[in-house]
């Protein structure tokens, strides 16, 4: 960006500004090329109502629309009077130059209780693209660009008149990902989140809170304390929407398909690890509303309602227990719409128990897919729908406004979650002196025999929390409660009060050994907040009972979170563990920098070590140790049985291997061991270049009796150990008809590494073999293609050599499925395949327009489906209704997100718009191997790449990396070059109908 000093002379901008300002205020009604989803012809409420297909037993009505000033609504919250506050952001996605901010927070009211809002008034105006808010402490917490602000109406005229910045420094690098989704926890903590392109730096009294990329924020208003969790997009790329279960269990929804149980991630540490999701939708959706009202059908109770903004649905998920966490499955939707402008973006149960749905109403979903100034971006409409259950009475909400504390407290017993949520917020904002005595009395008078007694105590504890009042006896009472939920919540609160309680670990100790796994998980997360060395010793006691993915995740993070405390204490001998295996686990997870080989050897002697811990300790020993330690490791019985140990050793830097150590390794290469152990030992020999075992490997590789996989790996190792001297052997094996295919392929691989010209000869011979599938052909060409200069050598060889037509066709499809852009090779293969004419289509808006017209008027979806199914390169990468690859974007509802024009561009010229997260990365290793795919995760040491071929990600050590380039799409251009116009037309028609009902 050229800064201002340089650009004074430019006179054009004023004109541009003028043009833009005209565009904002005039809405083109005509369909425009390159829209993301075609705008609806009829934008009326009636037309949208007609588009709805509702599950049986429900009724849908309009609650409010643009007629009450609701245009581009993005969030809504209820107040205690039953008024609905709605944030509208027509300035999204970008305010024009010099334009005054004009986004609003409006209050809607249904005064005559007929289920329709009848009045609206603006509480705050002139807002700058805020994405979320929540009511509290007599005002509004608002996420507005870089700031978390507090708006308040101090003179009672219904309009905000003060604006206080509470925290600032939140990132704004992408305007649909700034801080959003505000919600109070049961203990009065304000949670919100940020998305993938957001980098925040916020100054607090505890230091600078840094959150890079997607993260979840927690704000404790009275302490002015801000903490972030799960940054680095480790629990969804764009979190949007969270909620708390009846016992405070936290969940959050990605804007993507995934749903998360947040709790294991609430361990505060800079260490990043991907949190496993608990379930997913077919395609994107946001927001969680948990049904807790008597009005809606009993069958719906406890289900998660999700805003399926992408495929125009209101989705429903059922969440059930899964060990210390949960699992979720998708049920039939509550509502589907055929209108592509129906975009549910917030869902809340209302005071009457009805389900209220905030409808962004826009053909263009969000952001990057279409131009920022696309005329189809709807700036005029916005709807709020109200879904009721037919034949079930509505809930009569109690009067909550201006009620004394005692009245409010009794409402904490309500079955209606809406009521309890409002009451908690109201009690949090009342003066403590008014609340405390009444609350004390209320708790004393609770009926101990009430089945909900402990839940009522939990709500009371939440009220204390919201005032930052530490109430230890109540906490201890819940900690020894009958309900697992009560104990789990007590554990959570002990963590929250870790710096205020005298002995937080004393409370947590029984809870970390609780019979219920969810209690143990909450206790573990709580322990991570107790900044003492002993906390780590206590945390590892969770290992005494069965572990699961949530507990493992939290325990790993806890080791990092508490490292500053346990590590020095351990070094000075001031930290004791109940069991040596607990220490062994910790050291295996996070090896202390001061640990010596002797330390490791001693720890490895510990009894009852799990194979994982033992393996990890042996690996740490290998990392720090010398030749005698390597001998020690290879002498271990597990070196004869644990293939994973040997595999992991092979990934370490080369270590000194003595004759004795090599002799030990020879045992692992014995044919009596499993093929897995053999192969891992071969990998180790290959990686560490252990030449003394080359003869042993040679025996295995040339022995027909041995498992073919072992032989294949043996050949590859011999290439590394013996170099070009193995070429004659490999060449013989590669061309011999008696050689099994796996061995031939391994030979091709070996030759490719040694000499691409020789490899091209052998590869073409293999390609010429008749029969086989696309997949076979892909395996045949892969060794050479994946080698530096391999494609060139193959092209050169094929220029002089013919292939049978069917083989040439297979080769073309194999290249496509592999995602290889090799125009010359493709041209030659097309020539050899003869049968088809080649149309290299050039992009032009006119062409797209013409084709789109043909798609609409003549497209045959049935024929298109056939083309899709017979073209293996599509499903190699894309999932469609649960089948196919995952490396490319999911196509299940592509027609809901993209117009046929957009799909045409995506299919024919994939490099034009690359979907977020689908950039191709290509790395070349120092050995000349080329790996291409999608980068899924990167640390300081390794890159995880998802490739077309493998189901597991390739993990590449950065030390092995020669180069890395990121450019373009993984989808090759020209996939449709051999298809006719009619074929393309029908395929597009098929794709554009995907997701329709």
């Amino acid at each position, binding site marked *: 960006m050229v800064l201002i000093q340089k650009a004074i002379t430019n006179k054009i901008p004023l004109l*541009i500004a003028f043009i833009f300002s005209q565009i904002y205020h005039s809405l083109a009604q005509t369909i425009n090329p390159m829209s993301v989803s075609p705008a609806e012809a009829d934008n009326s409420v009636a037309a949208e109502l007609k588009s709805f297909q509702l599950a049986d037993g429900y009724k849908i009505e309009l609650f409010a629309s643009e007629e009450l000033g609701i245009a581009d609504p993005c969030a809504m919250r209820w107040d205690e009077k039953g008024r609905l506050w709605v944030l509208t952001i027509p300035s999204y996605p970008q305010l024009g*130059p010099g334009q005054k901010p004009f986004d609003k927070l409006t209050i809607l009211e249904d005064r005559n209780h007929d289920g329709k809002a009848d009045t609206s008034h603006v509480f705050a105006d002139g807002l700058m693209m805020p994405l979320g808010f929540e009511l509290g402490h007599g005002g509004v917490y608002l996420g507005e660009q*870089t700031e978390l602000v507090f708006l308040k109406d101090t003179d009672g005229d219904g309009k905000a008149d003060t604006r206080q*910045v509470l925290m600032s420094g939140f990132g704004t690098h992408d305007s649909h990902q700034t801080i959003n989704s505000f919600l109070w926890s049961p203990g009065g903590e304000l949670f919100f989140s940020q998305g993938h392109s957001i980098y925040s730096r916020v100054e607090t*009294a505890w230091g600078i809170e840094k959150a890079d990329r997607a993260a979840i924020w927690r704000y*404790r208003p009275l302490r002015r304390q801000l903490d972030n969790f799960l940054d680095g997009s480790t629990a969804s790329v764009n979190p949007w929407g969270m909620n708390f279960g009846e016992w405070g269990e936290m969940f959050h929804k990605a804007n993507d398909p995934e749903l998360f149980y947040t709790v294991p991630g609430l361990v505060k540490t800079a260490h990043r690890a991907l949190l496993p999701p608990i379930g997913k939708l077919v395609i994107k959706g946001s927001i969680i509303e948990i049904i807790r009202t008597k009005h809606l059908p009993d069958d719906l109770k406890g289900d998660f309602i999700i805003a399926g903004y992408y495929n125009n649905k209101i989705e429903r998920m059922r969440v059930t227990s899964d060990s210390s966490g949960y699992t979720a499955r998708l049920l039939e939707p509550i509502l589907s719409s055929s209108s592509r402008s129906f975009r549910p973006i917030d869902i809340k149960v209302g005071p009457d128990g009805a389900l209220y749905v905030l409808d962004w109403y826009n053909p263009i979903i969000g952001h*990057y897919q279409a131009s920022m100034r696309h005329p189809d971006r709807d700036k005029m409409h916005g709807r709020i729908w109200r879904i009721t259950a037919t034949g079930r009475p509505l809930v009569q909400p109690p009067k909550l406004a201006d009620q004394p504390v005692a009245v409010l407290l009794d409402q904490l017993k309500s079955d209606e979650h809406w009521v309890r949520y409002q009451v908690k917020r109201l009690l949090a904002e009342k003066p403590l002196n008014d609340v405390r005595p009444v609350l004390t009395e209320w708790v004393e008078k609770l009926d101990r025999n009430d089945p909900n007694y402990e839940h009522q105590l939990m709500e009371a504890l939440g009220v204390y929390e919201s005032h930052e009042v530490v109430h230890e006896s109540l906490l201890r009472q819940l900690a020894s409660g009958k309900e697992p939920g009560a104990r789990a919540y007590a554990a959570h609160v002990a963590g929250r009060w870790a710096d205020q309680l005298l002995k937080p670990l004393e409370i947590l100790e029984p809870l970390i050994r609780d019979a219920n796994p969810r209690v143990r998980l909450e206790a573990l997360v709580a322990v991570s907040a107790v900044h003492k060395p002993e906390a780590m010793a206590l945390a590892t006691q969770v290992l005494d009972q069965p572990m699961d993915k949530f507990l493992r995740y939290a325990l790993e993070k806890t080791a990092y979170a508490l490292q500053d405390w346990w590590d020095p204490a351990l070094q000075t001998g001031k930290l004791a563990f109940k069991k040596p295996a607990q220490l062994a686990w910790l050291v295996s997870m996070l090896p202390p920098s001061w640990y010596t080989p002797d330390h490791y050897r001693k720890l490895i002697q510990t009894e009852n070590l799990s194979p994982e811990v033992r393996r990890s300790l042996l690996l740490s020993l290998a990392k720090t140790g010398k030749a005698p330690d390597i001998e020690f490791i290879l002498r271990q019985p597990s070196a004869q049985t644990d293939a994973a140990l040997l595999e992991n050793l092979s990934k370490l830097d080369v270590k000194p291997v003595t004759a004795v150590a090599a002799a030990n390794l020879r045992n692992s290469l014995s044919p009596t061991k499993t093929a897995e152990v053999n192969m891992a030992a071969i990998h180790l020999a290959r990686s560490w270049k252990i030449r003394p075992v080359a003869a042993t490997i040679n025996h295995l590789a040339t022995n027909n009796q041995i498992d073919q996989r072992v032989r294949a790996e043996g050949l590859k190792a011999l290439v590394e150990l013996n170099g070009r001297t193995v070429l004659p052997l490999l060449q013989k094996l590669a061309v011999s008809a008696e050689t099994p295919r796996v061995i031939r392929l391994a030979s091709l691989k070996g030759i490719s590494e040694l000499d691409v010209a020789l490899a091209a000869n052998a590869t073409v011979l293999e390609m010429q073999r008749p029969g086989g599938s696309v997949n076979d052909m892909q395996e045949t060409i892969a060794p050479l293609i994946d080698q530096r200069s391999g494609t060139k050598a193959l092209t050169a060889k094929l220029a002089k050599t013919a292939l049978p037509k069917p083989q040439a066709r297979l080769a073309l499809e194999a290249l496509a499925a592999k995602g290889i852009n090799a125009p010359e090779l493709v041209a030659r293969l097309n020539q050899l395949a003869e049968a088809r004419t080649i149309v290299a289509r050039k992009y032009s808006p006119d062409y797209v327009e013409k084709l789109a017209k043909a798609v609409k008027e003549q497209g045959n979806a049935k024929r298109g489906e056939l083309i899709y199914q017979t073209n293996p390169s599509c499903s190699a990468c894309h999932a469609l209704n649960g089948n196919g690859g995952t490396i490319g974007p999911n196509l299940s509802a592509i027609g809901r997100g993209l117009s046929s024009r957009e799909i045409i561009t995506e299919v024919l010229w994939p490099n034009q718009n690359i979907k977020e997260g689908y950039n191709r990365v290509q790395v070349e290793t120092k050995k000349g191997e080329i790996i291409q795919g999608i980068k899924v995760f990167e640390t300081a040491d390794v890159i995880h790449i998802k490739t077309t071929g493998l189901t597991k990600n390739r993990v590449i050590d950065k030390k092995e990396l020669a180069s890395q380039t990121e450019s373009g799409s993984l989808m090759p251009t020209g996939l449709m070059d051999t298809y006719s116009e009619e074929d393309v037309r029908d395929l597009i028609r098929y794709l554009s109908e995907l997701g329709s009902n």
Partner: protein
Amino acid sequence: MIVPRIFVAVLIWISFSATFARAQTDKTFFNGKNLASWSATDMKYWSVKNGAIVGRATQPVEKNRFLWSSVKVADFYLSIDVKLEPDDRNAGIQFRSQKADETGQALGYQADMGKDVWGRLYHEHGRQKLDWSDRGEKAVQRGQWNHYEILAVGNRIWTAINGKLAVAVKDPDGDASGYIALQIHSGEPQTVTYKINRLVHNPKVELAGLTESQLNKELKLPEDKRQSNHSTTFKSGDVIVFAGGTNIAAMRKDGILETRIMAAQPTTRLHLWNLGWDGDTVFEQFRDVGFGSWSKNLDSLGANVVFVQFGQLESLQGTNELPRFISAYKKLLDSIRKPNRRIVLLSPIPFEPERSYLTPEGKSNNRLTTAPVEAYADAIRKLAESEGYGFVDLFHPLRSSALFGSLTTDGLHLNPEGHRLVAELIMKELKLPGAFAGDLAPLRQEILSKNVLWFNYWRPSNWAFLNGDRTTQPFSHDWKDKSRRIFPEEMKAFEPLIREAEQRIEDEQKKLLPVR
């Protein structure tokens, strides 16, 4: 066999120090008996008595008198015991000096001695006062023998009196070598006795019990090379930049200081840009891909006056991290240092821990109560002095203000009252008027609207699409012509708007001029 090993080690150390340091005591400098290697235009003032050189004037002296050594010095250490009789007279030791004329007047450094000048560094006949601190004065025993040491290595000069450090100056492009001369000052009769202990060439850098790195930390630029805090008025066309964390960033939202600066010089056209970015520290100034670094931003704006504030959030890391902070700060400032750029360091403000929570129950063990922000402020002052930057102390005046305790919103960040006080302090330090007759509100309004434009232009939302890692997405492109990027074009449209806003500021400035 431990003993021999130590022995070997010592031998190695000795030979190393001999090879590399080459410290050498000069035996020819003074033989203790006569003035064989010394000269003066009038030798009648000079004699040797009891192994010491005596300069005596029995009559009032008209001009300064010098006794010149024939030994040339560059990097050296000189140890002398000196006594002035009577004790209110003035003398001095010239070093790395030249004769200024045929009367033997000296040109060059002088380690000064005498009433009110003890232990100061003067540049005789030249640049005059170089280090005028009173540290040496405090160590002197009046009327007694005083132990005077001079250490000059490269462009670094230190002196010590009675083992206490007096001068510590880093003088780039100063006199690199020259001669030593002893002085008796013009004036009333006096006797000065110089007992020369030793002269060492290429000495080891240690003095007054301090190591080289400790000595280096004390270095300051000489007074004539320090940035003058007096020439602080702004010139027409000056580009003033404020940089730092949230407390700086917030200034663009209240415009208090900026309004006063503009009002103080109503006929001067100034450009003022706020580059404050929440969470910026000397260790990290986070900017998104394609944004350009902190220092590059200053350059592209053509900033010639830069106010920088760091150290507040950094102080939460405690005293142990102070050296790391100072060295990072120094490095950061080095990256923006330019001949025609004035840099003024603003000290961090004191914390108000009582404001960091909303209710008594919300009180917590946050770091504000223990953070040594004063030590950070003091270290920044020293850094400014030694590097020749301007400095405005906000810490001490704010802490001693009657309003202290109610100057921040949250214990860290200034509220409007705090911003007003800070503005006053900065204006005072800049020697600009603090009170204004006219109504500043319209000027401030224009400044605020300029600042909004500036912020939305400089740090707009959607940066990822404008110039970050998502520029290829359709978002920033035209909807019909995909090759055209409309987002950068829109950003350009800000430029005339900002120009116009600046013009309106200038118009408001002029309205503040008294009507003739």
